[in-house]
């Protein structure tokens, strides 16, 4: 009798316990900020181009050789809108081969590749899980929006920006010189002509 009541008590306690399981396809567990999903390429919204320059360092360090990349000359550099002389032309990752180790992110010098939160990908064919550059960038944009991604260090100035900075600084110098000149003009009129 007593043991029966005890058993009932255990059952009751079990029934009142909070639920620990999640019904997976319907519910999703929250993903941690550091969660490493499939790698994705980040998008530089200031320059309107990918961060990736196709330097191949991630390709060389990948333990499973799941990536391939190719670089090209950057048209935007020629126009002066970007500081990147080279830019990625094509990038392919075989996600079925990727082991999500994050080595590519470690070795990248340009913050160009990140482990996104994308992890639910399955295909019916053995080699169907290959992603190309547009898709990788799409994954990257989604990830950047999710975690409010920031560059680890600001990128250097582009040729146009350099020219602008130079122009601004020169103008500043000139205006300083002008103001100095006007200041000095009141004291010594000769020095103002030298500065000009």
């Amino acid at each position, binding site marked *: 009798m007593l043991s029966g009541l005890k058993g009932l008590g255990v059952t009751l306690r079990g029934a009142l316990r909070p639920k620990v399981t999640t019904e997976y396809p319907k519910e999703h567990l929250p993903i*941690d900020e550091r969660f490493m999903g499939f790698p994705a390429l980040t998008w530089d919204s200031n320059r309107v181009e990918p961060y990736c320059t196709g330097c191949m360092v991630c390709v060389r*360090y990948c333990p499973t050789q799941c990536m391939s990349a190719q670089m090209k000359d950057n048209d935007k550099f020629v126009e002066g809108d970007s500081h990147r002389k080279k830019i990625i032309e094509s990038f392919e990752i075989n996600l079925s081969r990727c082991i999500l*180790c*994050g080595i590519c992110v470690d070795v990248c010098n340009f913050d160009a590749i990140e482990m996104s939160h994308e992890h639910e990908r399955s295909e019916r064919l053995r080699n169907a899980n290959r992603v190309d550059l547009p898709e990788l960038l799409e994954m990257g944009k989604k990830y950047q929006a999710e975690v409010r991604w920031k560059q680890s260090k600001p990128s250097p100035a582009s040729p146009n920006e350099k020219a602008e900075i130079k122009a601004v600084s020169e103008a500043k110098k000139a205006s300083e010189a002008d103001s100095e000149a006007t200041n000095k003009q009141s004291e010594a009129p000769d020095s103002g002509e030298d500065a000009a």
Partner: protein
Amino acid sequence: MTDPVATQIEDKFTYQASSEPGTVDMMVNMGPQHPATHGVFRMELRVDGEQIQDVVPHIGYLHRGSEKLCEHELYSQIITLFDRFDYVSNFNNELVIVSAVEKLMGVEPPPRAELIRIIMCEFNRIASHLLFYGTFAIDMGAITPVLYNFRDREKIQSLFESVSGARMMHNYFRVGGVKEDVKDDFTSRALALCDELERGVDETDKLLTENEIFVERTTGIGVISGEDALDWGLSGPVLRASGVPYDVRVDEPYSRYSELDFGIPVGSAGDCWDRFYLRILEARESLSIIRQAMALLEPGDTMAQIRRIARPPAGEVYAHCENPRGDLGVYIVSDGGERPYRLKVRPPSFCNLQALKDLTVGHYIADAVVILGTLDIVLGEVDR
């Protein structure tokens, strides 16, 4: 033969055999797709009735050639292969290869990184032991404990996810430190988890240790003496259950274990019950280690100043650490390049498995499952 059941049967039926009298031993094939073998492991049992006369283990179903693969990988890439050896205690495996390369290079990781490593390894030890309690109980028909243990193990894995970004294949330790510092809320989270795990371990202890059927099934089964265990080269809980107080953390302290105060539980009988209960005690010791390490944790660097590509000098090194399963060792021969010339692993599961025949012969088939369960092998490490 003094089996009472067999003699009863013999008494009941008097054989009027026309041909030669006598019985023939039967071969029973267990595995590789057997739930109790915890992976792809096959045992050929020669049984007389239900009693085991001989065991022939067959391994190699999960062989991936990892040791050979290591010769073609950079040291940073080898860490990913070590994650996949003993796939339920990944951090402990990473620690071995990382400390071996550090020993060869003469690099000292910063104190904070060492403590983070210890905390992660001890949490992983508990996670591995929790899996052991559950699967071991399932081998004997107790379904409930595994659910509770998996619940607690999930919590540990969530903590791992917040630290390393992955639940199992972390690739978090680096030669000279760890990948990145832990998050700000790590301390409070880990300490809260310690309390939860303490309750979880106590619950398992209550469910299994005091269970009469469980005690009957495990006491006096698969006994191995301390001398025999040493002769077979066993290590870890299997060795300590036989009364040999050997633990690499104490006998050859690595990392910062010498600063921590903890005991080594030692069994006496060397049977299945001792091997099980020792792991319960060990999980409690691990919790105390984690709490001490958390108290020592001070802000600081987590990575030593070294080159990105580890390039150890020519030479050889052997480093070993205490894994949940035993003494995992790595022997590296370096020719001064970016990749090891040769890498050899001393896997505790493989060495512990050698004693299987000694342990099982003379017991019943159902006990073979129990004995294999207490050896707690992981096939990823046995086959490599």
